[in-house]
C-alpha cells in the first residue's frame, strides 16, 4: 500500500504541468521594464566587467569556453579582451576595429563590412542595455526567477542572416545586462555571462588600445 502511494505521488508529480521558468510580461509590465532599463542605460557612462563566453553547438560534447575582461565607455568605445585560453583583444573605437591577436596587431574600418557595423552596434547596445529599438527589432519581454529577459528578433535583412535572436538577461535590481545570448539557430548559440560589473568608474581612454 505504501509503495503504491509513493508510486502514485511520483507519477502525479511528473505528470503535473511544469511551471514555466519564464513568463511573458503583460504590455504594462513590459513598458515599465523597458522604461527602467532605458533610465539606467542612459546613466551608464562606463562599464568594466569580467566575462565568460560559452559557444554552444549541438554536435559538440562540451561548450567552448573563453573568458576575459570587457570595458565600455560612452558613447561607443568598447574593448573586449580575451585572456583564456588565448590572448585576443578587439577594440571598437572611432569607427575602427583594432585587433591584437597574440601580439599580432591589425586594424580595419567598421564601415568596410556591413555585418561588422551591425555587430558593433549590437554588441555596444547589448552591453549598455541600449538596444530597445522597435525599428530594428521585434521585442518581447519575459520575467524569470532571477532575471528579466528581453528577446529581440532582428528586422534588418543583413543581421537576420547571421542572428536569429538576441536575448538580454537583466538583473532585476540593477536593470543592467548580466547575460547575453546570441542565437544563430536552434542548435547554435553564444552565451556571454558578465560578473563583477563596475558601473560608472573612471575608465581612461588609454584603455581602448590594442
Amino acid at each position, binding site marked *: 500500500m505504501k509503495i503504491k502511494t509513493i508510486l502514485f505521488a511520483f507519477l502525479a508529480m511528473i505528470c503535473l504541468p511544469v511551471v514555466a521558468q519564464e513568463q511573458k510580461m503583460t504590455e504594462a509590465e513590459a513598458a515599465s521594464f523597458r522604461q527602467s532599463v532605458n533610465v539606467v542605460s542612459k546613466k551608464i557612462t562606463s562599464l568594466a566587467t569580467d566575462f565568460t*563566453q560559452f*559557444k554552444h*553547438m549541438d*554536435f*559538440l*560534447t*562540451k561548450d*567552448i*569556453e*573563453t*573568458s576575459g575582461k570587457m570595458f565600455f565607455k560612452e558613447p561607443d568605445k568598447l574593448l*573586449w579582451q*580575451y585572456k*583564456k*585560453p*588565448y590572448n*585576443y583583444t*578587439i577594440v571598437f573605437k572611432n569607427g575602427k576595429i583594432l*585587433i591584437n*591577436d597574440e601580439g*599580432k596587431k*591589425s586594424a580595419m574600418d567598421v564601415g568596410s*563590412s556591413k*555585418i561588422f557595423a551591425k*555587430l558593433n552596434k549590437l*554588441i555596444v547596445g547589448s552591453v549598455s542595455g541600449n538596444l530597445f529599438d522597435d525599428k530594428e527589432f521585434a521585442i518581447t519581454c519575459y520575467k524569470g526567477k532571477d532575471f528579466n529577459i528581453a528577446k529581440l528578433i532582428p528586422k534588418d535583412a543583413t543581421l537576420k542572416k*547571421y542572428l536569429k535572436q538576441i536575448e538580454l538577461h537583466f538583473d532585476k535590481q540593477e536593470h543592467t545586462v548580466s547575460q547575453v545570448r*546570441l542565437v*544563430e539557430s536552434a542548435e*547554435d548559440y*553564444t552565451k556571454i555571462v558578465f560578473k563583477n560589473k563596475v558601473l560608472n568608474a573612471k575608465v581612461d581612454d588609454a584603455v581602448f588600445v590594442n
Partner: protein
Amino acid sequence: MPKSTMRFLSISVLFALVAACGSSPVKGLAETTVETPVFRSTYFDDPAADYVYKANVTVYGHELSGIFVAKKKDDGHRVVLTTEFGNKLIDIDLKETDYTVNAIVDELDRKILLETLVADFRLMLRKEHHIAAQFDAPQAKILKATDGKKVNYLYLSTIDGKLLQIKHAGKRKETITFRFHAENPTFAEDIFIEHHDIKLKMVFKQLKNQ
C-alpha cells in the same frame, strides 16, 4: 660578356630552377617494401572528441582568425570556423567525395576559395591513406599515397611512427605542405598548412577547453 653566353647562362639558370622546383620529394631515396597497404591517421578519428583549435588564415595578405572545430561523424567530419565572438564563418559537413555547406558568410562564399579550403580540410582530416610505395629517408619513413591525379607523401617519425608531414604534389612539384606536431598520437596540438602555388597559409593551435 657576349649576348649568346648571357642567353645560355640565363636559360641554364632557368632550367636549374625549374628542375629544382620539379624534383620529387623522394628523389634519390631508396625505395623499400610497403609495410602496410593502408596508413591510418588517428589525429581526427575519435567521435567522442571535440577537435578545437585557434585558427589563423592568411590569404593574399588578408588575415582571418577564429576558432576551428572538427567533429568526427560516421561518414566524415563536421567542420566549423567561427570568429572569436562565436559567429559562424563557415559550417560544412565534409565527406571524402562530397561536402554540404550548412552556413557560410558572404565574404568566404567564393567557389575557388571554398573548394580550396574544403580540399585542404579533407586532406588534413583524412583517416585512411592507400600506400603505393615506401621510401627510407634519414629522419623519416616516407609513404607515397595516390590522390586522384595527385600524390601525397606522408612523412612518419622513425621513433614513434607519428605522422609529421604530408606533402601534396602534382606531377612536377610539391604544391601544399601539411605539418603536424603531436605529443600523443591521437591529437595534433599544432597544424600548419602552407600552399606553395598560391598565397595561402593556415595555422591551427589546439585550444585547451577550460
